[in-house]
């Protein structure tokens, strides 16, 4: 069980049709896979190739394509390499399968993605609010959510020339950089 396993795994994955396989370095592999094949791939990796550690699930919003990209990072302690399995799911309705039965830590990542992007994972144990307990607006990490407009509508701003500042300005202090100067 040494580096040979990596070679065998590469050979196997390259044989499978319909997935795009790319080894980026000795320790990193990128696999692009269709959404209905991803759980099977993960099951293969976990059960047969000792990829037992789910490092993270990340989500990328592609509003132009109308898709969410989900990335599953799994790590193997024996072959010492990280597989990033990319898949794309349609943005509407944004429902996908949970991999909680394969990797239990997935529950937290899925809950987080549900909160931030609104992707619903079927079979995940808990899809309630996780971090944004005070939040009842749209999922804030979606690209169409305009944070600045929301902030301007929700919060008041400190006026930039309150009376007490004039005393400070007479002493040589005060606001030196205004927000419009540093807008990019």
């Amino acid at each position, binding site marked *: 069980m040494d580096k040979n396993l990596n070679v065998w795994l590469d050979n196997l994955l390259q044989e499978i049709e319909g997935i795009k396989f790319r080894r980026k370095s000795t320790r990193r592999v990128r696999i692009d896979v269709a959404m209905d094949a991803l759980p099977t791939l993960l099951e293969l990796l976990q059960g047969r190739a000792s990829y037992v550690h789910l490092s993270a699930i990340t989500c990328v919003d592609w509003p132009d394509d109308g898709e969410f990209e989900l990335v599953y990072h799994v790590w193997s302690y024996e072959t010492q390499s990280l597989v990033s399995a990319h898949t794309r799911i349609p943005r509407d309705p944004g429902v996908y399968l949970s991999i909680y039965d394969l990797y239990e830590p997935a529950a937290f990542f899925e809950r987080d993605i549900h909160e931030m992007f609104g992707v619903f994972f079927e079979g995940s144990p808990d899809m309630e609010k996780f971090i944004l307990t*005070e939040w009842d607006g749209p999922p804030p990490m979606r690209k169409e959510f305009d944070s600045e407009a929301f902030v301007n509508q929700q*919060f*008041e701003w400190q006026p930039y020339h309150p009376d007490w500042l004039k005393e400070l300005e007479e002493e040589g202090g005060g606001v030196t950089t205004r927000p419009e100067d540093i807008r990019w």
Partner: protein
Amino acid sequence: MKDIKKIEIIQRPPPPEPARRTNPLARVFDELVRFCQSRSMFMLHYCTGCGAIELPPAMTSRFDMERLGIQPMVTPRQADILLVTGYVSVKTLKRIILTYEQMPSPKYVIGICSCTVNGGMYWQSYATAKVLKDYIPVDVYIAGCMPRPEAVISGLRALMEDIRTGRGDAWKKYYQNYDFYLGNQQRLFGEKWQTPTDVIAEAHHYGMMTDQTLGEHTDLLEQNEVPLDALRTRLKARTE
């Protein structure tokens, strides 16, 4: 349990007149008390953002805060000053208000870092409250990102001077303008927002009721008030 809305709202009597000070030593005594209050400040060991990283240097051997009589205390009941160090997310703000209301007055709030003044570098974040003094009265702001320990100590000295001369009374504003603060809080936390502390009763107890204390927001609070139960603990047994 009776229906909450059916309970009559008790009409509270007008605030009592402040008693006339007949003791000739009262003024001296007040000055002594204020001096002691300024020279002994217990700060609450509660930090919110990244500015907290400047407090250990201010407390330990380089800029020893104990020289000024400032020492950390761990419960809000024992504390005098609340340092809000850094960005205040909406979730944190709830805890800050709960903590602030539990502190015994006279109590003081210091906003450290730019984030407490105007959101700082998180100005366009959807999750941070921008102007701290809209939610609780702030005595001293120490701006900077982050302020150096020298700036923190200079701000604390300014607060000490305010207390000694009797100007540090921002905590009274919370009782006098409770409607304003409560309105801003309700805007973020929703109409059901309530805290375990009965601020209106306290304001009445201290004789600090003004016409700004009660208003539409406090009416909303009394409408939606529910009796407090013990905190809900949720233990989910895993079924496999």
